[in-house]
C-alpha cells in the first residue's frame, strides 16, 4: 500500500504492508538508520521520532497511520549536529554505548520545544519512557539543562566550560565531575 509522508522535510512515498511500523520504514526502506530498534513494544524509547511535532515511538506506529504526516528523525534534527542537545551531549560526553541516545535526544528535543527551561522533575517526566541500558541518566539530565541554557543564550557557543562542536581536543572537565582524585 503506497503511503506518502514527509521525512526530515522531504516528501517520500513507500509501498509496504500497511502494518509495517514506521521504524522499519525509516530504517530499511528510507535508509535512515539513526532511529533504533530496542523492544518493539514502546517500552524503551530507542525508536523515538517526532510525528507532527510530538515525540512518538515509531516501533509500534503502523505506517498506515503516518499518511500525510510530518516525521523528523535524529538525522533531521540538524544538518550538522549543531542542535543544542547534540552539542551538549558531545560536550558532556553523555553516551557510553550510544545506542539509545538518538531516542533520548528526540524525546529531549520535544521537551525543550514545550518547556524551554525544564526542572529535574520536568525532565524525569518527559524522559521516563527512554531506557538507557548503560544508565547514563545523570549526564542526560545534565545535558538537557546545558542545552536549555545554550538555547536561552541564543544558540551560541556555550560558555560553561565546553568546547562547542569542536570536540576532538582533550578537554579537562574535572570541574564538571562529581567527585575527586586523591592520593
Amino acid at each position, binding site marked *: 500500500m503506497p503511503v506518502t509522508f514527509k521525512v526530515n522535510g522531504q516528501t517520500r512515498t513507500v509501498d509496504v*504492508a500497511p*502494518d509495517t511500523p514506521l521504524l*522499519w520504514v525509516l530504517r*530499511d*526502506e528510507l*535508509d535512515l538508520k*539513526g532511529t*533504533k530498534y*530496542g*523492544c*518493539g*513494544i514502546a517500552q*524503551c524509547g530507542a525508536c523515538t521520532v517526532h510525528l507532527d511535532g510530538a515525540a512518538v515511538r515509531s516501533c509500534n506506529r503502523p505506517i498506515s497511520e503516518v499518511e500525510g504526516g510530518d516525521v523528523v*528523525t*535524529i*538525522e533531521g*534534527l*540538524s544538518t550538522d*549536529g549543531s542542535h543544542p542537545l*547534540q552539542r551538549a*551531549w*558531545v560536550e558532556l*560526553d553523555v*553516551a*557510553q*554505548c*550510544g*545506542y539509545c541516545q*538518538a531516542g533520548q*535526544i528526540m524525546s529531549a528535543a520535544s521537551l525543550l520545544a514545550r518547556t524551554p527551561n525544564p526542572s529535574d522533575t520536568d*525532565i*524525569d*517526566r518527559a524522559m*521516563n519512557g*527512554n*531506557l538507557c541500558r*548503560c*544508565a*547514563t*541518566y*545523570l*549526564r*542526560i539530565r545534565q545535558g538537557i539543562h546545558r542545552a536549555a541554557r545554550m538555547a536561552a543564550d541564543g544558540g551560541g557557543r556555550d560558555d560553561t566550560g565546553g568546547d562547542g*562542536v*569542536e*570536540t*576532538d*581536543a*582533550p*578537554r*579537562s*572537565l*574535572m570541574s564538571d*565531575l*562529581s*567527585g*575527586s*582524585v*586523591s*592520593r
Partner: protein
Amino acid sequence: MQTTQVNRRQFLHVSALAGGGVLLASSIDPFARLEALGTPAADFAPNAYIRMTPDGIVTIIAKNPEIGQGVKTMLPMLIADELDVDWKNVRIEQGDLDTTKYSGQSAGGSTATPNNWLPMRRVGAAGRAMMITAAAQTWSVPETECTTNAGVVMHQRSNRRATYADLLAKAATVTPPDLNTVALKEPKDFRIIGQGVGNVDAMAIVTGKPIFGIDVTVPGMLYAVYEKCPVFGGNVASANLDEVKGMPGVRHAFVIDGTANLQGLMPGVAIVADTWWSAKTARDRLRVAWNEGETAGQSTEGFARQAAELSGGAPQRSLRKDGDPDAALAGASKTVEAAYTYPFIAHAPLEPQNTTAQFRDGKLELWSATQTPQGGRRLVAQTLGIAEENITIHLPRMGGGFGRRLYNDYMVEAAAIAMKIPEPVKLLWTREDDTRHDMYRPGGFHNLKGGVDQAGKVVAWKNHFVSFGSGNGFAPSAGLGATEFPARFIANYALDASTMPLGVPTGALRAPTSNGVSFVVQSFIDELALAAGKDPVQFRLELLANLQPEPPAPSPGPGGRGGRGGGPTFDGNRMAGVLRLVADKSGWGNQRLPQGTGMGVAFHFSHRGYFAEVVQATVSRAGQVKVDKVWVAGDIGSHIINPLNAENQAQGCVLDGLSEAFAQEITFERGRAVQDNFRNFPLIRITQAPPVEVHWLTSDNPPTGLGEPALPPVIPALCNAIFMATGKRIRSLPLSKHNLSWT
C-alpha cells in the same frame, strides 16, 4: 559498506595523489615498520597500527571491540600521548579482527587497560623515538639534545624545529627502536593520559550515523529471523515451511539442524525475506513441532526445591578449609546463621543480537557485534567446517555488551544461514529472542554460619554454596573461587559446594560471580557486625586488617575458579583505603538521619579494582524505596586514564547494580524463560537514578579496568541501607519480592 581493509589502502593511495608521489612512500613506511615490530617479539603481543600523512594527521587503529566501555577512545590515547602528538590531529579507525597484527581483540573482564597500558604506550614511544632520530640525523645533532612537543621535534641549542610531517621521509629510513627498551614518558609529562577526552564517536552517535552492528548494509542483502525451541536444547521435529514460504516477501525458509552446544548453533528455523518486517511477520505464522528434550522438566520452583534439599544435607565437596570452623563456631560468643539467594538474570543489551553475513566463493565475511571476534571465528569455523583463514570479521560499534556478546551464538546462526543462500543476509533477533535465549547470570544459594568472639572479632565463617553443574564442575559462571573474600582474612573458614543439574545456558554478566556473591558476603558481614555490636565500617576495617599469617596455598577445588573476585592479589590495605575514603566523603557516622532513612556500606574487589560504596536510602511506610544518593570510592591504580569516561562508567555500574537489585529476575517454567521483554524484565529508568558521587584514590599500582568492578558493592550497600532504615534484612533478590517498590 566497504571493508575497512579496502578503505584503508584506498585512502593511502588517494593521500599520495593529494600530497605528492614522494610523500606517499615516506608517510607510509615508518608506520609499516611499526606495524611489523610486534610480530617477532613474543613479549610484545598487542600490535597497534599508526598512519601519519603529510597533512599532519595521525590515524590510529583502535583494535578492541567497542561496547560502550570507551576503549576505542582510551587505547589510542595511550599511543598518542607517548607519540607526543596533539589529540586534535588524531583520527581513530576501528580495526577488523586480525590476529596477525593485533592480539587481545576482545572486550571482557575489564582487561583492556591492564593488558594494554604498557604495550600501547611503547608503540607510541617508538614512533616518537623515530621522529627524534630523523631530526637528529637531518640536523647532525645528538638525539639526546632533541625534545618533542605536540608533533614537533625541537633542538634548543640551534633553535631548530621540524614537524613530524616534515620528518616522515627521513623517519622512513630509521631503524625502529626495540619496543621492550624504548624510553617511556615520565607520568608528569603526560598530556593526554589523565585528561577528560570525549568519546571519539560522540558526534556520529548524536547525529544518528549508521555505526552499530544493526546498521550494517551490504548490497543485495536480505533479512533473517531465527526461531529456536523455547525449551533450551530442544530441536525441530517438523515445521510448516511451505506455508511460511508463501508469505509476502519471504525468499527462503529452512530448518537448521544445529548442534548440542548451548553457546553455539542451536537447532531452529530460519526465515529470510526482503525486509526484516516481512521475515518477522512470516515468523508469526510459523508453527513448529519441537522435540523439547530433558530441560522441559526444569523450573525455578524445582531449582529452589532441590536447593533446599541440598542445603539441608551434607555438602558434596569442599572448596576450601582453613583452621577448624566448627570448633570455632562452638566456642564463639555469638553466632549468626542465614541463607541467601539471588536469581537468574539476563544481560539485555539494548541493541538486539545481530550479525550480517556474506558467503561468496568459499569465503565468509561477517559484520558482527561481538565482544570476542576471535572466539566467534573459531566457533563458526568449527561448527560450519570452514577454515578460519576464509573468515573475515569486521567490528562495528555495539549497543552494549555486558558480557552477552562474549558468546557468539547469533554470529554462527547468521553464518549458517548465509552459507545456505546465495544472498548476503542480516540476522536480527527480536527483544523476545534476546530475553528468552540469553546466557543467563545463574542464580545461587548460600548457607552461611558465622561467629564472633567477645571482642567482636570474626572467628569463624562457613558457607555451603549450592549452585548448578554436574560432576565436579560448575555450570558457566556458576562457580565460586576458593580465594573469594573473606577467605584468608578469617582463621577458621570453610567453603563447601553442592550442585544440581542445569539445562539452561549460563554465562558471564558484567562482574560475573561478583555481582551475586558480593550481595551475600557484604550483607552477612553486616549481620555479623550487628552481632558484634560494631559500626559496619569499623567492623570491616578490622576484618581487612586480619590477614592470616602464611595463607595456605589456595585450593581452587574441582571446578572452582580463583582470582576474579578475590584471591591472592587481594590487598586488604588498598580496600581499607577506599573504605576510609568513602566513609569520609559520605559523612558516615556523622549524620543524624530522619526516621526511615538509612545508610549502608559495602566493598568488593573484582577485576583488579577496589571499590567501596555507601548508599543512602529512604523507605516509606508503604515500602517505597528511594535511593537518595550513592558515594563511590575506587582504587584502580596510578592513573585515571580518562576521567571523563571513568566517572561515567562508575556511575553506570552503580545504576546497573541498583537495576539488578530492584526488580530483575528471569524465572523458568517447563524449561522455558518466562520473561520476554522490558515489560517484565525492567531496567532502571531516569526517575529512579539517584546522584552518584565518584571519588578516586590513586595508588602506586598499574592502572586497571573499569567496565565492571564498581558494580558489585552497590547491591549489598543498598540492602544494608534498607536494613538501617527499616530493620528489615534482605536475604534474597530482587527487592520487588519483599513488598518493596522503587521510586
